[in-house]
């Protein structure tokens, strides 16, 4: 054990669903505070399941997950993390401001503090002026920004993101990638990010966890040693392409190993 508590520490986690599907097998992973870690792998490799184990939304069959040195159940009760899904999952009956304020309401913040905080968050995700809109009046990208603002509203040390930009078009996705990095730097939190996209994983992360399916396990860890802060030019660096190739090869190797000859 390190002297400082890891942001996330996964030890021997396996998950077998009712019906016998083994989604995860023998997962070990340590994530240091401040890291941006992407989980990448083909469908069915259990990356979303792993994210939910970290968030104590699913109980593992074996092993355990620690968040900030605490059992994940305790971390959830302490509201140590915020979560963002593929769809924004906003409530139609709440305005943008009230959607962002939801976790603050649950945490018992006063009306005054809530309003102050929501204003800050709106500024962070650049949605000032939209506080009184309802979700259906926003584009998909704007909805997802509201969802990110909501996840960060109570200042969690950990941000869990389950393919947050998967449903968006390429242009919006790249713009939100930049925004997410800006937010990550500003907030100083740890991010665990599930994605299908190799380029997205490499561009965003400090480390990429490559997973392989049936049963889901970690096949390779790729350190992304691109400079910070990342810019549009980062995508054009030769080293960026090298890393993309490295991750792609790892993905194919992980898949090929299980494929019958």
């Amino acid at each position: 054990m390190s002297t400082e508590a890891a942001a996330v520490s996964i030890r021997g986690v396996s998950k077998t669903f009712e019906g016998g599907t083994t989604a995860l097998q023998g997962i070990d992973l340590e994530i240091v505070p401040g890291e941006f870690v992407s989980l990448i792998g083909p469908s069915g490799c259990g990356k979303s399941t792993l994210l939910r184990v970290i968030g104590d939304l699913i109980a593992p069959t074996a092993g355990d997950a620690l968040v900030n040195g605490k059992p994940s159940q305790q971390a959830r009760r302490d509201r140590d993390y915020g979560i963002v899904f593929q769809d924004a999952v906003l409530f139609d009956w709440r305005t943008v401001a009230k959607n962002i304020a939801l976790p603050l309401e649950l945490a018992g913040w006063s009306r005054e503090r809530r309003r102050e905080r929501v204003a800050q968050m709106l500024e962070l995700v650049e949605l000032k002026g939209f506080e009184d809109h309802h979700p259906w009046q926003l584009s998909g990208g704007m909805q997802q920004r509201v969802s990110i603002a909501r996840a960060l509203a109570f200042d969690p040390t950990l941000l869990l993101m389950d393919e947050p930009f998967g449903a968006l078009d390429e242009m919006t996705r790249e713009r939100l990638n930049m925004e997410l990095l800006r937010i990550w730097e500003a907030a100083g939190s740890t991010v665990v990010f599930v994605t299908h996209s190799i380029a997205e994983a490499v561009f965003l992360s400090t480390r990429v966890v490559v997973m392989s399916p049936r049963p889901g396990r970690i096949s390779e860890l790729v350190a992304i040693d691109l400079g910070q802060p990342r810019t549009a030019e980062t995508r054009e660096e030769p080293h960026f392409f090298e890393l993309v190739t490295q991750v792609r090869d790892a993905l194919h190797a992980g898949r090929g190993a299980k494929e019958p000859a």
Partner: protein
Amino acid sequence: MAAIALQQPRRAGSLLRRVALYLVVPAFLVLLYSTYRWLGIHFHWTHPFVVDDITMPSLRSIVSALFEPSRVNGPLLITVLLKAALFTAKEAVIGFALGASVGFVLGALLFQSKLLQRGFMPYIVASQTVPILAVAPMVVVWMKSGWQSVAVIAAYLTFFPVTINTLRGLQSADPRAIELMRSYAASPWTVLWKVRVPAALPFLFAAFKISATACVVGAIIGELPSSIQDGLGGAILNYAQYYSIEPADLWATNLIAALLGITFFLVVVVVERLVVRRAPEHVA
């Protein structure tokens, strides 16, 4: 269609079109009734029934009956009927409130457990297959005749759609929204009030629309075994006895009863507009 209409800026013409619609449909119905009546009398139709001033009084006589004294030296019929409608409305409103509350609580309780659903649902369904005419006299015996027992009878017709739709509505919440609430360590009670009940609102209002008219029918029917004379049920019973002499009086009474039901329905529609905030494509 509705979604497209809502997204377009409202033009001055659309309001005019709506008003026209509200006038055209009744006008068409009036025309239909009058034409059938005229043809029936003119050609001496006997099938499915003989058409004459008794079976189909003229619309003019129905409307003018409203503005004639209900009996010699009595008040105008419309005054009598509006008073009766107000009396019945009171019973129906209380019945609606009672039935909707019981229906919601019942639905919320059933939502808590599949076992409760399996155990109780057959009896809840059975309660609605027993004719209200069979239940009403018993309620009157239990509660003594009075407007309170009528309200209970109206509630009996109100609760069922609310229970069914509460159950369905609470189940309709987005599973990811539930996951989100779990990530906030929200209590089941908080999840119910912040997510499930708001998600259920469109379902609840669909039920309220059915119940709004059902409770009026329940109140009218309930007045009969209670021997209550002050409401529309009493008026219907009264004017039905004189139908062969003054058929227009019963028709006029039915007209007022229908207007009462429509009023109840419209109140629910207006409240729904104010309360339910949804993406236009999700509004029923």
